[in-house]
């Protein structure tokens, strides 16, 4: 590949963000933009650019809509080759927009989901090119697949 792949790494706060940071070495040498919900998380990133979005859960539809719009804008500006997310809602929105623009997507379902895939993890199936669980017993031949864990 002639130019560095452009990576958009996106997650909501807390455990989702902590897990995204743990896979950051996989983006080394890429042109990476991290996107999350708290400004203060900027100090956590090892390299690359940083953008923030409003935090929202699926219980607050207005905030959720604002989040979706901001994510669409960020994807349009960043034009990533690959989008990766550890969850939750921000990853879903980013995948929907990124796929329209021809980007490839990686879903890494949170290690917190040890018995069933997360709700968002199930919702992203049609939009995930690499659809990963962190639990071997949750992997199936038709997906999701297992490719290691953050621990």
């Amino acid at each position: 590949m002639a130019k560095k792949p452009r990576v958009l790494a996106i997650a909501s706060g807390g455990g989702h963000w902590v897990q995204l940071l743990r896979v950051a070495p996989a983006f080394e040498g890429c042109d990476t933009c991290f996107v999350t919900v708290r400004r203060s998380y900027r100090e956590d990133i090892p390299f690359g650019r940083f953008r923030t979005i409003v935090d929202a859960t699926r219980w607050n539809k207005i905030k959720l809509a604002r989040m979706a719009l901001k994510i669409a804008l960020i994807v349009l500006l960043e034009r990533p080759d690959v989008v990766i997310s550890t969850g939750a809602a921000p990853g879903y929105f980013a995948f929907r927009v990124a796929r329209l623009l021809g980007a490839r997507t990686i879903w890494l379902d949170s290690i917190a989901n040890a018995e069933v895939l997360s709700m968002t993890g199930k919702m992203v199936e049609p939009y995930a090119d690499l659809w990963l669980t962190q639990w071997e017993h949750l992997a199936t031949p038709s997906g999701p697949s297992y490719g290691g864990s953050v621990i």
Partner: protein
Amino acid sequence: MGSTIFATVGAQMGFDRLISAVDAWAKQHPETTVFAQIGPGSYEPRSMEWTRLLEPAAFRMRVETADALVGHAGMGTIITALQHAKPVLIMPRRGDRQETRNDHQVATADRFGSKPGVLVAMDEGDIARKLDTILSADRPDPLGNTASTQLVETIRRFIHSAGADAASVRPPSDSTETDP
């Protein structure tokens, strides 16, 4: 100088069942300094110092200076404790009490409760007894700052594979449809 315990329930939702149980324990144990990040909880502790939300640097300082952590069974809390090799007591949020969307924290507590240095209280009635032992619990094996080599390589390979190769990385999907 007494020991220090840092209690955290994350930033997004309060967890009054846990915080009030820790507060009750703190009242009985004035020799131990307890500090809590309570998020948007409605119970305000009386026997320990607390704040609603710490920024990452302050949060890290609290973790580093604590002898043990107590928190909800969230992966942020568990991974942070393991990275700093601090014993941690976790109590799962319950879906049926609207403390989170489902019982995934119960599953997390089941899975991680067998690790050295990780103690589990299934409910608030178990907190005091477990806090009594956590300061003498074994420290967990320190966890590095990155994911498993396998996972980093899985992701790196996918990123650097050309678009046409993507299908070979992911198993072919079938018609099973379980989405809501």
